[in-house]
């Protein structure tokens, strides 16, 4: 595969995420990470993309009815798009607060639901947006620039 510097075209991958499947959870993020490694992306950037992809994937596994995650990779940026089919986030401002979580006791016992997922994603990316409404799905979009930071 070409190094990212020589990457002309967009490379896109999409993976389905199954709700409540804690055995496969993290596989989509792992595949995205492996792809970035194959493309020769710098390790610090890969780590940031891995954090964003993992946390986004886990949010869908833990909180949603299921969804999918996509990574769009160009020479300049890695865009991660994560969508689910509901039930939606009632209060996005709260969800973005460090330490705030609506995860159940069972989920917390597994070490999830620390209220760090969305803050971790936001810290990892140059661009961050989340759209959601009660009774609808959630759509998260982040962009990590190859040439900034790290």
């Amino acid at each position, binding site marked *: 595969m070409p190094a990212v510097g020589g990457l002309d075209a967009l490379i896109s991958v999409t993976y389905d995420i199954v709700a409540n499947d*804690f*055995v496969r*959870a*993290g*596989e989509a*993020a*792992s595949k995205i*990470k492996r792809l970035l490694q194959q493309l020769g992306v710098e*390790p610090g950037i890969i*780590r940031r993309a*891995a*954090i964003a992809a*993992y*946390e986004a994937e*886990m949010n869908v596994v833990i909180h949603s009815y299921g969804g999918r995650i996509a990574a769009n990779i160009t020479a300049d940026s890695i865009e991660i798009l994560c969508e689910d089919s509901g039930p939606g986030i009632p209060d996005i401002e709260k969800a973005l607060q460090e330490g705030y979580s609506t995860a159940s006791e069972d989920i917390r016992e*597994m*070490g*999830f639901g*620390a209220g*760090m*997922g969305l803050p*971790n994603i936001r*810290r*990892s990316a140059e661009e961050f947006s989340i759209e959601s409404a009660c009774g609808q799905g959630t759509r998260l979009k982040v962009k990590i620039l190859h040439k900034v930071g790290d």
Partner: protein
Amino acid sequence: MQLAAIAEALSLSPDHGSFKDIEVKGGYSSDLLSDVMGKAAAKSIWVTNQIHPNVIAVASLIDAAAVIIAGGVQPEEGTLKKAEEVGIPLFTTDLPAFEVVGQLYQLGVRGTARSA
């Protein structure tokens, strides 16, 4: 520090001879997966009491050197399988997490936290 030397010094099980060339650059201890995901540096040895397969997903994503499950608890079947699959050395010990970290520190392993 070499992982094999750590495994021997702490009498970690299983007794792995096959991890000779794995370098441990530091350590991290937490049971919150997002905390580890966000903060543990690559090549860290991660001490936890969590036993489910997602521990390995996180360890693999952050390029952890190894995972030690402390406190005498055994990993789930799926955790062992996944560890083997992705090549993350997974140890267990009867020692509580505090003791494991203390012994690692005495061996010269220092905490690693990356800035976000």
